[in-house]
């Protein structure tokens, strides 16, 4: 009897919960994603608080050359005597900043272009989608390398380059959704209600496609962090002395470092893997949690 009442209460709770609560409840079903989120918050927090946590200044020479990990230097020192642990904290800052900013830019560009292409159709759609195809069909890494060569490698240039290369996927996604939504009765109803176009596009259609955008954005975030690492590894990304996870791996290009000094490349490499995996797990869980058709 007691159990039945509890169950009824539970059902009632579920029926009354807000959309946000539903999403949260479904998200928590994915244990891996919850763990990933905690890791991401921990690492993000460490990156944010780098100036407080880091024992040394990241760019200053504070110890012996290529010193192995010790009590004094937890992850050892690099070839010119900088503290690897401090550098990693600052590098994470840069890598996350690049990832988040590039994702923001590409999302905004993709959403705006996708909305315009999907809603207005016709020539606008044609022009935007062919441009999208063009960007997509270009060898990606080559484009980035050429752009990096033209615009001089540097933090903000990397962010801009990655931001303007990652948007086609989002633009296509949004366009597809808008094509669908444009024909629904509630959009027609809004036209009938005499709502201005701006309202229909941004307050009616956009909120309906936020969930897939959010999910896609997580994979763009992971990808652009990887791209930054790849670019920096190739020397076209964030320039030293500024540390990024990618250019810290740069050292591993030398065979001595690769074989004799693993503390120089294992921690940043590991961090890249952990960050990217955590973000991908979270994206996966978000996909399930935000899906309005899921009945869990």
């Amino acid at each position, binding site marked *: 009897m007691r159990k039945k009442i509890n169950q009824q209460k539970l059902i009632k709770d579920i*029926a009354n919960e807000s*959309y946000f609560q539903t999403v949260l409840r479904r998200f928590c079903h994915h244990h891996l994603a919850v763990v990933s989120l905690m890791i991401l918050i921990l690492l993000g927090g460490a990156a944010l608080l780098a100036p407080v946590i880091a024992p040394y200044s990241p760019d200053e020479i504070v110890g012996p050359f290529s010193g192995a990990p010790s009590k004094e230097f937890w992850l050892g020192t690099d070839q010119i005597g900088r503290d690897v642990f401090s550098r990693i904290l600052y590098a994470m800052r840069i890598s996350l900043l690049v990832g988040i900013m590039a994702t923001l830019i590409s999302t905004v560009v993709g959403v705006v272009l996708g909305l315009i292409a999907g809603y207005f*159709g016709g020539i606008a759609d044609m022009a935007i989608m062919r441009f999208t195809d063009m960007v997509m069909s270009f060898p990606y890494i080559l484009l980035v390398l050429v752009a990096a060569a033209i615009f001089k490698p540097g933090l903000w240039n990397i962010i801009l380059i990655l931001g303007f290369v990652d948007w086609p996927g989002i633009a296509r996604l949004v366009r597809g959704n808008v094509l669908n939504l444009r*024909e*629904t*009765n*509630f959009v*027609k*109803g*809004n*036209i*009938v*209600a*005499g*709502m*201005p*176009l701006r*309202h229909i596009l941004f307050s*009616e259609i956009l*909120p*309906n496609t*936020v969930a897939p955008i959010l999910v896609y954005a997580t994979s763009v975030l992971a990808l652009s962090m990887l791209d930054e690492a790849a670019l920096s590894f190739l020397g076209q990304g964030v320039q030293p002395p500024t540390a990024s996870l990618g250019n810290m791996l740069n050292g591993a290009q030398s065979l001595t470092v690769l074989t004799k000094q693993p503390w120089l490349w294992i921690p940043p490499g590991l961090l890249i893997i952990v960050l990217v995996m955590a973000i991908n797990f979270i994206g996966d869980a978000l996909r399930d949690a935000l899906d*309005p058709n899921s009945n869990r």
Partner: protein
Amino acid sequence: MSHLLEVKGLTTVFTGDYGKNITVDHIDFHVDEGEVVCIVGESGCGKSVTSLSIMGLLGKGGAVIDGSVFFDGRNLLSMSEKELDKIRGDQLTMIFQDPLTSLNPVFTVGKQITESIKAHMHLSGKEADARAKMLLEKVGMPDARGVMKKYPHVLSGGMRQRVMIAMALSCNPKLLIADEPTTALDVTIQAQIMELLGKLQRETGMSMILITHDIGLVANMADRVFVMYAGQMIEEASVEELFERPVHPYTRALLDTVPTIRDDAGRRLVSIPGIVPESYDNIKGCRFADRCKYRRPECDMPQEDYEFGEGHRAKCIVMKEELTGGN
């Protein structure tokens, strides 16, 4: 006297992969203030396209190529989108067929109702809230406050249609177009919704165009009825006239298909043989001729509107000859 809505020679064409298709062909009708007008016809005869043409909602591929739609003395077809936006939702509004997709799934009911109230009536948030609650009570929603906080997916089809009606009424429209408002609903709910629409129409004195394929619904509600077939208005009459003395063979056939409670137990349901012609642009004569049991050679001539009494017109030369001796 000028009419509230006057449609003259409205012709709508859809351009598809297989060329042009005239979906609505030179239709004329009008609606007076406080009047309920029904447009009846089977699927695909152009009822919905007529309403979408009036509202300017045809979308891709569809275009009005001829005719005029005067609302309150102004031609809707020659207005810019901006001017239309001022009229749509304010004086002229519409309810759609499918209430299940007519509400935005990511917003609460309350937000969606208050939005258009705010846009057109320039009320503050609180006043708009109060008005939304009043409207929901008016359409017979129990617990209006609670419903306003709910998302559309927790409401049933009938409740959603009530919300849609509340939204349509939010700015005291002069004319409401209801495009098959009950098609997606259960029979019992259908009756409730129709009753509600009738009650609200009488209370507010607004005009209404009711579009339906269910001729049974028409009897209680309408003042005048238009019968559409294959893109044309083939008969126009007051409700009593239409049910007492239907003229056009199609109208008669349509009325015969309705089962009544007084039917003999053995009576088989009647259907109209044949199908609506898929493309009717090149049929010069009567478009119903191929399915008509009264068919004569004259039927292949272009048909005009013939008078059969006060406000009663039909496009059938055979009946004109039979009933009035050809004069």
